[in-house]
C-alpha cells in the first residue's frame, strides 16, 4: 500500500470523498460548538436539532456584559505568558546542553517528571501556597504552570536542537566563538522555528490548564477555563452562552496553533518519535 502510494498513482475523486468523510467527525464538535453559540436558548433546546435559523450574536454580547470576561482573559494571558517566558529562559540553554553534550541522564529524569500525575504536585504546592498566603496570586499560578511548561520546553527543544548540524557549531567554535556565543548566535537562530512552536505549545497548555488553576486561582486571578467551568453551576444551563464562552477561549488557541502548524505537529509528535 505504501509502495503503491509513492509510484505516482492517479488521484481519483473517491480519494477526496473518503478524506472528507474521515475528517468530518474531527471537525463536527467544534462546528457544533460554534453553531450553538449563534442560536437562541429555544433553538438550542429544540429536538430534533435546528439546522436552519437566523444567527444571533446575543450570546457573545451576554458573555461579555454579564461577566468580567476581559479580566479572566487578561489573567489567562499573564499566567500563560509568564510561565512560557520563564520556561523558555530556563529551558533553552538546558535543552541545548543536553542535546549537544548528550546528557541523556538528565533527559530521562525530565521525562519521569513529565509522567508523574499532576495532582501529586498540586496537593503539596496547595498546602505550601496556603501557608505562604500565595493562593490567588499570579506568582503561584505561574509557578504551578511552570511544572507543565518547563519539562515540555526541555523535552521538545532537545529534539529541535539535535537537528542543528553539529558542524555549524564546530565551525563557529573554530572561529573563536565561546560555548555561550555558539548557543546564542548559531543554535538559537537555526532552531528559531522550533523555539516559536515550542513556545506556542507551552502557551497553549498553560492557557488550557484546568486542574492547577481550579485550585490555585481565586477570585482575583481566575483564568478563562475556570470561569467557563463556573458557568455550569447555574440552575438552568444557558447553552448558547456556554458555547459562546467556549468558542471565545478556544479560538485564540486554534489560531495560534494553525499559525505554526507544521512545527507544532513536529513538537507534539517529537516526544514519541525520538529514540
Amino acid at each position, binding site marked *: 500500500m505504501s509502495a503503491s502510494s509513492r509510484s505516482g498513482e492517479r488521484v481519483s475523486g473517491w480519494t477526496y470523498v473518503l478524506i472528507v468523510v474521515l475528517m468530518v467527525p474531527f471537525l463536527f464538535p467544534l462546528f457544533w460548538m460554534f453553531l450553538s453559540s449563534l442560536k437562541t436558548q429555544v433553538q438550542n433546546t429544540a429536538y430534533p436539532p435546528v439546522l436552519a435559523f437566523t444567527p444571533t450574536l446575543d450570546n457573545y454580547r451576554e458573555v461579555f456584559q454579564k461577566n468580567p470576561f476581559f479580566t479572566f482573559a487578561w489573567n489567562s494571558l499573564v499566567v500563560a505568558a509568564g510561565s512560557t517566558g520563564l520556561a523558555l529562559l530556563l529551558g533553552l540553554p538546558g535543552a541545548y546542553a543536553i542535546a549537544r553534550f548528550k546528557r541523556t541522564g538528565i533527559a530521562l529524569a525530565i521525562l519521569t517528571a513529565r509522567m508523574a500525575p499532576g495532582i501529586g504536585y498540586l496537593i503539596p504546592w496547595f498546602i505550601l501556597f496556603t501557608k505562604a498566603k500565595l493562593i490567588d496570586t499570579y506568582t503561584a499560578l505561574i509557578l504551578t504552570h511552570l511544572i507543565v511548561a518547563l519539562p515540555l520546553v526541555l523535552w521538545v527543544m532537545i529534539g529541535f536542537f539535535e537537528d542543528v548540524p553539529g558542524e555549524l557549531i564546530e565551525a563557529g567554535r573554530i572561529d573563536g566563538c565561546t560555548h555561550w556565543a555558539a548557543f546564542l548566535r548559531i543554535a538559537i537562530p537555526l532552531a528559531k522555528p522550533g523555539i516559536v512552536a515550542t513556545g506556542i505549545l507551552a502557551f497553549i497548555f498553560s492557557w488550557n490548564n484546568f486542574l492547577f488553576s481550579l485550585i490555585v486561582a481565586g477570585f482575583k486571578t481566575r483564568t478563562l477555563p475556570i470561569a467557563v467551568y463556573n458557568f455550569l453551576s447555574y440552575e438552568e444551563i444557558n447553552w448558547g452562552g456556554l458555547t459562546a464562552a467556549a468558542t471565545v477561549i*478556544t479560538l485564540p*488557541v486554534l489560531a495560534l496553533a494553525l499559525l505554526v502548524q507544521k512545527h507544532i505537529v513536529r513538537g507534539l509528535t517529537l516526544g514519541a518519535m525520538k529514540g
Partner: protein
Amino acid sequence: MPSVGAGWSRFVERHPAPVFTFPAVVVVFVLMVFPVLYTLYMSVHSWFASSVTAPEWVGLGNFRRAFVDDDRFRNALWLTVYFTGLATLLQVVLGVTLALLLNRPFRGKGLVRSIFLLPMVATPVAIALVWMMMYNPTLGVMNYLVGLVGLGPYKWVSNAAVVIPALVVVDTWEWTPLITLIALAGLATLPLEPYESAKIDGASATQMFWRITLPLLRPAIIVALLFRAIDCLKTFDIIYVMTQGGPGFASETLNVYAFQVGLFYFHIGYASSLLVILFALVLGVSLLLIKVRRGAW
C-alpha cells in the same frame, strides 16, 4: 569588575554542560522533587490539613485501607484500567487505520494536518462542555445522530453502564489525531525495497501489510501507545467537568478520587497514598517505554 566577569566566562567555557543545565535542573528539582518527597512522607501519615493536629504516623495503614477496606478505591482502580485500556486500544487502532487510509497522494495534506491539530490543542474544558451538550439525553445531537441509524436513545454520561465508553469517545476524539500523525510520519520513512521484492515474489497487498508495513511501523506505534496509556491513566479535565466521577462513582477514576479525597475532604495522607499507587502504575508503563526506546523490544 572585568576580572570576575572574565573568570566567570572562563568557568562557563570549561564547564558548559553543567552551567547551561543548572538553572533548569534546579527549578525542576524544586518544583517537582519537593512535592514528590512530601507526597511520599504524607502517604504513611494521617493528616486532615489541620494546623492544630500534626500528621500522625500510620505506616502502611493507608495502603492497607485502600486495598482491603475501600470499595471506592478498588472501583476507581478498575475504572482507571478500564478507561485507559479501552481508550488506548481504540485510539491506536483508529489512528493507524486513518494513517493507512490517508497515506496516498492528494492535494490538501496541509489542510488535513490542520484539522487533526484542532482537537489536540482545543481547550479541554470547552471540549468537555460541547460534548456534554451533544450527549444531553433530551436535547443532544448525539441521540439524533445515532437515531438516524436506528440506535438509541442513550443517556450517555448519565448512565452508569455507558459513562466510561462515552468518556473514552471524547478522549479518542481528542487524541486519535496524534497517533495518526505519528503513524503517517512513520509511513513516510518506510523503505521501498521490501515492497519491490515482495511484489516480485507475488505477495498480495494484505500479506505486504501484515508482513512488512506493520512490523516496520511497530516501534513508532508502541511508543505512541505507551505515551497515550500514560496520559490516559491521568485523565482529569474531561472526566471532572463532564461527570465529576458520577453518576454515583461510575466514572470516578483514581485521579479523580485522589482529587476528591485530597482537595475536597482534605484527607491529605490518604490522598497521598492513592497518588503513590497511581504514580506506581504510571511508572510501570514509563519503564516499559524507556525499555522500548532503548531498543530492547
